[in-house]
């Protein structure tokens, strides 16, 4: 058993599950999407990205790319949230909430791809 692999798999999956938890629910309803969950998803996703740094295998590079995409989407969602709350002061309207959630939905897709690649890598390894 490789401890590195365990840690990495843990973070990748946690990022996907947290992301899913935030995403699920009515897309326009702020009550269904907790900000702490988005926050946790961002932090865990960032850690997962850093853990994949310096991997020279082809599969590792694709996982890194997917992970970077997830970060980008989640950070975009967080920035949108900050803007509507503090810059434009329009508050969490239905349209704002749905764009935040749809951005996180994109991140979810990237995270799922990461998980799938992780599974493929595990299956392909001979040991």
């Amino acid at each position, binding site marked *: 058993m490789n401890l590195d692999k365990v840690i990495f798999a843990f973070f990748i999956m946690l990022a996907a599950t947290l992301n899913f938890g935030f995403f699920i629910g009515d897309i326009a309803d702020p009550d269904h999407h907790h*900000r702490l969950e988005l*926050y946790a998803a961002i932090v865990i996703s960032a850690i997962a990205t850093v853990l994949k*740094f*310096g991997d020279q295998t082809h599969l590792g590079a694709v996982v890194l790319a997917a992970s970077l995409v997830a970060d980008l989407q989640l950070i975009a969602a967080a920035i949108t*949230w900050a803007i509507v709350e*503090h810059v434009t002061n329009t508050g969490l309207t239905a349209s704002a909430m749905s764009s935040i959630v749809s951005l996180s939905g994109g991140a979810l897709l990237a995270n799922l791809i990461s998980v799938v690649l992780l599974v493929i890598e595990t299956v392909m390894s001979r040991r």
Partner: protein
Amino acid sequence: MGSVFFLALRRLRGPLVTLICAYAVSVLGLVLIPGRDSAGGIWHMDFFHAFYFVSFMGTTIGFGEIPYPFTDGQRLWVLFCIYFTVTAWLYAIGRALTLVQEPAFRQAVTYGAFVRSVRRLAEPFYLVCGYGDTGRTLVRGLVEWGFSAVVLDQDQDRINLLSLENLPVYVPGRRTNCSDPAALTTGGLKHSQCRGVIAVTNSDHVNLKVSISSKLLSPNLKVYSRSEIHDVGLNMESFGTDVIVNPFDIFADRLAMAVHSPARYVIHDWLTSPVHTPLREPLFPPRGRWILCGFGRFGKAVQQFLSFEQIDATIVESEPEATAAPEETIRGRGTEANTLQEAGVEQAVGIIAGTDDDVNNLSIIMTARELNENLFTVARQNRQENDPIFQAAEVDLLMQRSDIIARHIITRISNPLLAEFLQHVDKMEDEQWATALAARISGVAGDTVPTTWVLPVTKGTASALAIRLYRGAEIPLGVILQDPHESGQRLSCLALLHKRGNDTALLPADDAVLRHGDKLLFCGRRIAASRMRWAVNSADLVRELIESYP
């Protein structure tokens, strides 16, 4: 580049994860801990403000409590956060700095830079293995002829010398084991612009390995290799090494030529010297008995060539048994007066100081001169760094080994036609002929050595001339030897070789008829070269020259 980047990222995983955790915990704490707004009501900091606060808290310790003054609970948490984030930052920066200073990382960076600069080479280049005196002269010559070079040597000091050399083009160099085939490949062995490999390290074995690796990995490349041992040379020849240079043979051959046939020697010297070298008048060493000091590999080769040229020589050697010297050899180094007197220095006409020690060679020359001031002195210089003292000694003929080898190779690379011409000159037995040729060359040269240039009579290089010849005009060589600037004057140059297919004519006469596709080798002043190139590419000038030709 790639591997350095990945190495850096891999090493920075720990610090970056620590930093993310520090930020995440600090922000989360600030969001969860309740504060009070200006009206005294419960207020929770949001993520936006928390992230903003932590960002400037971690990097600067001088800040206000925003947007409302903190409660004591918040302050307690911020106190913890300050130490946590600052430590995380110090750790991350410290690790990054250590990484940059690590030898392995630095090596990876220089390696990456070397590979990139080799890949970017756009002009034809030669891969030079070994950057001793010979390698340095070679690289200078290659650059002068418009080539670039990549240098490999196992000594870092020599690579540092390369970067101090101040060459007009960038020559990448790398400390590496030349006999490693992978090192040759990173040096550009398979690069499309690589024209050849030159193996001039001190070790025959390394040169052999370089030659064989190059011939196997890139069979089309020209391989020039130095070999001191004849067996190794034969071995190199067996797998197709293009030019094998035995420094002792070439050096001894030149030396014997200088003594026996000064005119041929001076022709060699002039035509292969770097540009702007002052023109040295030919020396005529006296005929008679010579003294040869040193009977190592070099001395043996010299003796062989001297006896071939029927010159009598008395040998002086400190260890006659070890070097298998002939019986009548005088024992001694030759640096002491009594040894030289025993060798008959008073009756000799010249002395060759040919040991492998520069100081001894100089000492031999100085001592011998005191005993017989009319001696013709020939000194062998082994190391380039001793240039100043050899210059000061004012030896009649100074033979520098690295210089001779480097010129030998460069002539073959830069101007194969010149190499062919010099071979013909060597074969000519007639010393009168060579003396006359030397006089003609010095007549067109001026104060510095003549430059040599090749004029292929083709559309690309002599368009106007080639078109006329192609249409069937009959133009003698003399036409293009006229000065296009001043009618009735000849260009100060001399046609050395006229090559048509496999036929070569030495020193073609003015009435030799040109044909499309011929190759001509000239020597003379630089201005003559540029005027000739200008004239043969201009239709008007070619017509004028033909009309004015008698």
